[in-house]
């Protein structure tokens, strides 16, 4: 909501010239959803401070841009922190209020532009979700700032609620004003990790323009880009690629292949590879992925000639939409399209559409169901849909001790209702097999630890004896 910039540079009043704002006046500039007030709390020989005060109209904010934060049609749109914090609104205010300074221009005193001056900046208040103080430091310190933060409690009356994600941040550095402004322009929304407008292609241009000269060498470059572009993966990947254009190709390849290598070896990839292998071994032609999500396994299966008929089902309609996008559904050749069928469904309801498959993959699905619903799941899949083969995976809870960041007794994913031990899983799967005339075999997924087993586990069911 409030940003102050203070300098003690010898002719402190020069700040007014540089910023193109008269120190003796209150100026107000209109923004899309409110105003920004610019004034000088102090202007003396020793010290000059300029303040940027946001005056956001929360009602206008809702009327203008709806449904941006992905919160849907909820109350969060109407009662939120946006009017009170430093966010992308602050960046817009900065660029509107100080556009000449940001562009490194000064009509009256052009020499001042490239002079490094001692600056102190105070931001009240800055949200830093998923990163907090450490992240604030990691973003500003490499640029030469000394950083001071004060974290605010959520509610002093309810201490058990803990701390908030809001900080009052003080920064000091000897730096050119235009750089200071660019840093703030990029890093404030990156910390906030939210945008009040739709993030589109030209966001990348803005980011690259403002980040010119410092972002490419910033050690947290990737994180800044990702957070600035609010985790829109493809956009951040594009930005990273374009950002790297100036650097020697070797480096890029190294960086990308490293990244890819890491990704490839993630547990999930391993799991999917193994599932695919098992599906192939089963000799199935007609397969269904129950809980297909965004369709990673489907895309893998599509490459295999063996699968004439690939069906994906998921409970989440938005995941299915994503799945179609990833498959480039609308442009897909008719022959390919014929092989695929996608629909929404739930594994707790009996469903004729699930009948007649050679094999079903059920990857990391059951742990998202309450245990008392598993009986319905069992009947839907094994009693009624009755695919010849079922490849089913779930985490191995025993392995959790191997994760350093996982507190004892907690689960890997907030939506997991249980994470079974190998014994629990085997008991359940054996019972399911017995009830429904299947045989079952088990297989670990990922590296096997002597004591706790592999991170994930798999059951391969086959119908009949």
């Amino acid at each position: 909501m409030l940003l102050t910039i203070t300098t003690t540079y010898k002719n402190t009043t020069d700040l007014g010239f540089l910023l193109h704002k008269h120190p003796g006046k209150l100026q107000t500039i209109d923004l899309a959803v409110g105003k920004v007030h610019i004034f000088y709390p102090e202007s003396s020989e020793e010290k000059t401070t300029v303040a940027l005060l946001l005056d956001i109209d929360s009602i206008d904010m809702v009327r203008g841009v709806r449904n941006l934060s992905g919160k849907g049609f909820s109350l969060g749109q109407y009662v939120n922190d946006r009017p009170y914090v430093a966010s992308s609104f602050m960046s817009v205010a900065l660029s509107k209020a100080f556009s000449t300074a940001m562009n490194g221009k000064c009509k009256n005193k052009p020499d001042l532009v490239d002079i490094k001056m001692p600056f102190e900046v105070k931001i009240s208040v800055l949200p830093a979700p998923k990163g907090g103080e450490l992240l604030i430091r990691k973003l500003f310190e490499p640029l030469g700032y000394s950083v001071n933060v004060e974290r605010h409690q959520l509610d002093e009356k309810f201490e058990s609620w803990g701390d908030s994600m809001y900080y009052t941040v003080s920064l000091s550095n000897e730096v050119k004003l235009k750089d200071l402004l660019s840093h703030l322009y990029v890093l404030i929304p990156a910390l906030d990790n939210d945008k009040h407008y739709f993030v589109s292609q030209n966001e990348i241009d803005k980011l690259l323009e403002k980040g010119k000269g410092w972002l490419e060498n910033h050690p947290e470059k990737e994180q800044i880009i990702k957070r600035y572009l609010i985790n829109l993966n493809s956009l951040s990947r594009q930005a990273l690629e374009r950002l790297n254009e100036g650097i020697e190709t070797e480096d890029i390849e190294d960086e990308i292949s490293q990244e890819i290598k890491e990704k490839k070896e993630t547990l999930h990839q391993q799991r999917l590879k193994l599932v695919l292998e098992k599906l192939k071994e089963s000799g199935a032609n007609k397969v269904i992925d129950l809980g297909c999500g965004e369709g990673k396994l489907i895309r893998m299966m599509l490459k295999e000639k063996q699968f004439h008929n690939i069906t994906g089902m998921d409970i989440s309609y938005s995941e299915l939409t994503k799945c179609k996008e990833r498959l480039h559904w609308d442009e897909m050749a008719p022959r390919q399209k014929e092989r695929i069928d996608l629909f929404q469904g739930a594994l707790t309801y009996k469903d004729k559409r699930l009948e007649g498959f050679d094999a079903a993959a059920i990857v990391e699905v059951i742990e998202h169901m309450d245990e008392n619903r598993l009986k319905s799941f069992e009947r839907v899949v094994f009693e009624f849909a009755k695919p010849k083969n079922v490849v089913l995976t779930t985490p191995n809870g025993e392995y959790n001790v191997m994760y350093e960041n996982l507190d004892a007794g907690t689960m890997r994913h907030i939506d997991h209702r249980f994470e079974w031990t190998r014994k629990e899983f085997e008991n359940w799967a054996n019972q399911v097999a017995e009830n429904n005339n299947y045989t079952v075999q088990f297989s670990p997924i990922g590296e096997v630890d002597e004591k706790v087993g592999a991170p994930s586990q798999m059951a391969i069911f086959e119908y009949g004896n």
Partner: protein
Amino acid sequence: MEIKIPELSLVLLIGASGSGKSTFANKYFKRHEVVSSDICRGIVSNDENNQAATGDAFDLLNFIIAKRLKNRLLTVVDATNVQKESRNKLINLAREYHTLPVAIVLDLPQRVCEDRNDKRDDRNFGGHVIRQQKQQLKRSFKGLKREGFRKIYKFSSEEEIAEITQITREKLYNDKKDLHGPFDIIGDIHGCYDETIELLEKLNYQIASVSDNGKNYGIDVTHPENRQVIFLGDLVDRGPKSPEVLKLAMSMVRSGVALCVPGNHDLKLQKKLNGKNVQLKHGLAETMGQLEQESEEFKEDVREFLYSLISHYILDNGKLAVAHAGIKEEMQGRGSGTVRSFCLYGETTGEIDEFGLPVRYNWASEYRGKAKVVYGHTPVPKAEWLNKTIDIDTGCVFGGELTALRYPEEELVSVQAKKVYCKPAKPLQTESDSNLSHQHKYDDLLNINDVIGKRIVQTRLRNNLTIREENSIAALEVMSRFAINPKWLVYLPPTMSPCGTSELPNYLEHPQQAINYYKKRNIEKIVCEEKHMGSRAVLVVCKDEQTVLERFGIEKEGIGICYTRTGRNFFNDEKIEKEFLSRTQKALTSSNFWEKHKTNWVCLDAELMPWSAKAQALLKEQYAAVGTSAKNALTEVEQVLQQTSKRNIEGIDELLKKYSNKRKSIDKFIDSYRNYCWNVESIEDFKLAPFHILATEGQVHTDKNHEWHMENIKEICLADEKIFRVTPYKIIDTQNEESISSATQWWTELTEKGGEGMVVKPFDFISYGKEGLLQPAVKCRGSEYLRIIYGAEYDTPENMERLKNRGLSKKRSLALREFALGIEGLERFVRKEPLRRIHESVFGVLALESEEVDPRL
């Protein structure tokens, strides 16, 4: 001359071109009943005589016929139909939909046809076409009966046609919709005469010996309340006294005190008596032996009687269907060989089991019809409802019981077999390991087709409600991922609309508008209840686990449940849940609730506090987050502005004032949400405030007024004041200004103390006005509470002005639809309907909740 046709039939007009079929059709049938091949040609090709379009035209014709027959509509086919192949297709179509095919042949002289065609400028085909059609027709005459036509009418001249006075539509034999009972429906007797007499006596029938009039065999059965017996067939075989049973049944049917449908054994006996070569197995030998003592005349009488029996009956305005082995919905009230054989034998898979008996397919598990179906045929240890069907053959002849179903009371009355007359080929359906009833077992799994796609749900309160597909999609995800076991989920509460927007300058909501809503609609008595600020909770609590099993069909999930308005478990911690429910159960028990309301379970609508218990995440991520960020930022802003103010810059003081006000607003905002938060350390930190006793066994309490609800709930609350909270309320007379102002004053007091506000309801649970169903409640929220809904600074004049511009119609429509669906779900549950029917309503509420409505309302 009068032509008689069954009211549900497929009528083929047969005749050459120009024989006057269309004229005939238009004269005797209604516009939509006639499907014409010429018109279909026209539709698919723009030319009614385009022979090249014949293929497409007949595809369309067949399609239309199929749809009409499916919808039980008499249909007349206006095409030449002179070829056997084309008639065959139509006859097959009629059979597929179990309708009777009728032929009306117009065999007019060639000259007449030619003359007619000549007069029409759009028909220019030569005489040879008509000649050919006439020849084909001639070849057809003989075979028509064999082709399967039930009725054939033939007219050979214009004069004959002119003599037709009218076409009468006859009811089908199975149509007894005008009989309303009451009935006593009796299952398979199999010659168990003594048990039948005992059962009839138990059912209070008076059985008298009278003189034999040649029809009554000296028996006269009557019932003082004129009840009627329906015999479900299989009167004979296996048992000791088949002839006696026949005499009894025949006498009762003839005197009108009974109806009878045939069973497979009866049919076999009839065949035998007809002289057909029938194997004397499955008890027929015994029957034939017993009949040896009887006269030939009697046997002839039996033969005729059995021959006359109709496969099934539709009774009581279509609400009841009876057949020996049951009947599927699509066969009810129709006639075909398939229907008859289904009624006699049921559905078999064609396989033979290890006892050498045909494997039966349980058609009832898929039954979705509106009519209740009562049947027998398959002996079962216990008669149990499943999807509105019930098999009441409890195997008397095998030493079981002879059972009658009293309709409409739906009471089962049985007598024990005096002995085992016959050993069953296989043991009566083995007892399963489950303790659940058939219906509950079947209900373990719902079908996705009952929830996805666009749905139309019939409700008592608001007729048909449409659930749009996009809303079903959203609801499916929530239901499947987060909701509790659907067997618990008998109700979801409706959303509640706020009162109209206040015209007073400082208020967005004020009691005046809430009261006016009802006053304007001529509701004289209303109830104002304090609105607690917690989280909505629905509780289902049973007296014991046995009730959970018997009534809800749930095992090992405790004695009840407490769930949120979206069907999620209220408590994440199983231990706390158990403790909480057990406290509630104890309070119900110690307040004599079970005895007073003659029930073993209850469904309560309530508010559970504190808000912070369930809404912890919301509070931390939204309310406290906004509070702390705003407070800290604004404190800093105030300081900086105060500092600037010393510099005498124009406009700064104004700005300071503005931001100081913002600061004050945020302090109030924080106070406001804190009002509804407290730490929960023990079970007694929870406070439950029920406000509706929604349902108990046999009753949905929407017929009681709110005073009844509040007073009865108070009794429960007083039994455990540590966790229950009594909801204060006032009854207000909308015609009395003093009474109204007392309500306003009360609301002011409540909200000034930090209360959320109040809920205003009509005195009666369900109230109607000129526009139909009225809002079951409107809320009127306090000014400070609204801060957490509309934002800390909502009450500045410029904001208030904009916020007052709010529309309520969408919210109100939603509230009514959800209310109707919610109550519908409960009513269905109380009527013990299949779970899918209850789930449909509850799912509907959830789906509607995904409609976009301003969440601040």
